[in-house]
């Protein structure tokens, strides 16, 4: 089975160039291209870090209000308008029933593309944005694209579940949902997984959750309570309040699993 690797290096400050060392570990897998989608909830405190990593930034409807209102708050000693000009999305997309008029006008005047999709009531805002990013991102090989999403967790539960279902519907894409407290992403059953835990910024609390269908057999290494061909299901065992013990965690399963890991506070830019 093919191996899929994961690393939350988007949470690290930009790496500094270093002299190569004799004992240096092998170079990491080829760098990913990041896109950022902002949904309509308060921005996490590390949103600027993600923004700076991303090559494409999309606001889903009221996510534009959040960027407009919250980015200046993350830079309290700077002029709010200057912050807004620095953090201008590339596209605002969705049914546009949440974006404020003043926010819409501000971004229109800056030339931001605003796409009204209110005719399409069949898919959620996140679904529309992921489809757009997947089609538009400046990367030919989709396995090198990683879509970071803020504002997908918390709030109305049906929105949160709808957002998790987007991970399942686009299971061939790397999509990471982030909040101030944690991140989640899918580990598709089609691959075995290697997770390089970025210990300065994430962990130690973690979990593996079989959302949508039970697992008859899951095995892990690198956790405090490893699984060994263990069955997991709602109504039975699911792996929560687990702890990463090593900086490399492996997971292989017969079912799609949601991996979650806590984010350490504070994340420094």
């Amino acid at each position, binding site marked *: 089975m093919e191996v899929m690797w994961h690393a939350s290096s988007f949470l690290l400050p930009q790496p500094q160039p270093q002299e190569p060392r004799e004992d240096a570990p092998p170079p990491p897998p080829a760098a990913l291209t990041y896109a950022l989608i902002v949904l309509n909830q308060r921005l996490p405190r590390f949103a600027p870090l993600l923004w700076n990593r991303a090559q494409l930034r999309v606001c889903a409807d009221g996510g534009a209000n959040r960027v407009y209102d919250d980015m200046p708050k993350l830079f309290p000693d700077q002029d709010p308008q200057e912050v807004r000009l620095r953090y201008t999305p590339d596209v605002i997309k969705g049914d546009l029933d949440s974006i404020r008029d003043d926010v819409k006008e501000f971004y229109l005047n800056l030339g931001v593309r605003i796409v009204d999709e209110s005719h399409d009531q069949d898919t*959620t805002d996140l679904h529309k944005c992921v489809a757009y990013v997947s089609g538009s991102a400046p990367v030919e090989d989709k396995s090198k694209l990683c879509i970071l999403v803020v504002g997908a*967790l*918390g*709030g*109305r*539960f*049906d*929105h949160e*579940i*709808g957002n*998790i*279902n987007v991970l*399942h*519907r686009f*299971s061939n894409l790397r999509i990471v949902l982030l*909040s101030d*407290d*944690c991140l*989640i992403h899918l580990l598709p059953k089609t691959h075995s997984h290697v997770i390089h835990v970025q210990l300065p910024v994430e962990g130690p*609390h*973690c*979990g593996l*959750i079989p*959302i*949508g*269908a*039970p697992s008859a057999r899951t095995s892990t290494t690198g956790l405090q309570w490893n699984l060994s061909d263990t069955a997991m*299901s*709602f*109504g*039975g065992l*699911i*792996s*929560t*309040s*687990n702890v990463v013990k090593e900086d490399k965690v492996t997971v292989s399963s017969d079912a*799609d699993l*949601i991996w*979650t890991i*806590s984010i350490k506070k504070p994340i420094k830019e």
Partner: protein
Amino acid sequence: MVSRLVQNTKVMKHAATFLLPSSAVSATNRLAQTYALVVLNQQIPKFTPLLWSHAKLRICADGGANRIFDGVPKLFPDQNQLNIQHRYVPNVIKGDMDSIRPEVHQFYAELGSEIIDDSENQDTNDLHKCISFIQEQTSAFDHSNFCTLVTGALGGRFDHEAANLNALYVFSDMRIVLLSDDCQIRLLPKTHQHEIHIQSTVEGPHCGLFPIGGPSVSTTTTGLTWDLCNSEMKFGSMISTSNKVREEKVTVCSDADLLWTISLKTPIHMGLTC
């Protein structure tokens, strides 16, 4: 499959009358319920005093005691804070006691709260332990008339939230409702057909049905804007989110356990004089 659904003639009725002030609940509307309240360690919803007033048994899970101690007085800013703290004393505080502040522990212990230290049991999460406790305490009651209300189960760390959702499945023979400021969640077990009597002054219209434990081959509903009719639901494909209640009574019949969620209207009028 069709014959199995026809055999599920047992009907389970649901009504969020705990969101109404006691005085507003009419005799015909009310499904006689005895309530317990479990407070987990997250910011309490603004209507927590209303839930407290309905509950016969009030349990704080460890740091949930801090949340009552700090949070309830803030909901009554014009009242004497110490008086409020004396009025809202949990019956039980249970957990591994690594989050409750020492002064909060002492305050409630002196006022008669039963403190149950669980720290030797690391196998299950706080909510599971509290529900087990309630199950033991209420074995004499008819479980169909007993309902456990839970605050603080959603948000925060996702693995905690998943463990709390799992409690609904593990204790599927008990009525448990998870509540936040935004919404409520309950399990609709596949063993029953369900009637949900919508309290439209306090809940709706946004709702959803999710097969998180496993797919549904056939689910049928009435009373929703986008009703399901022998519809298949599974993750990776169609699940019912951003639906809306259209009638005062919603019915759900499914071959799979489903989570039902409905939004809450704010503010919830608590009708309390405190």
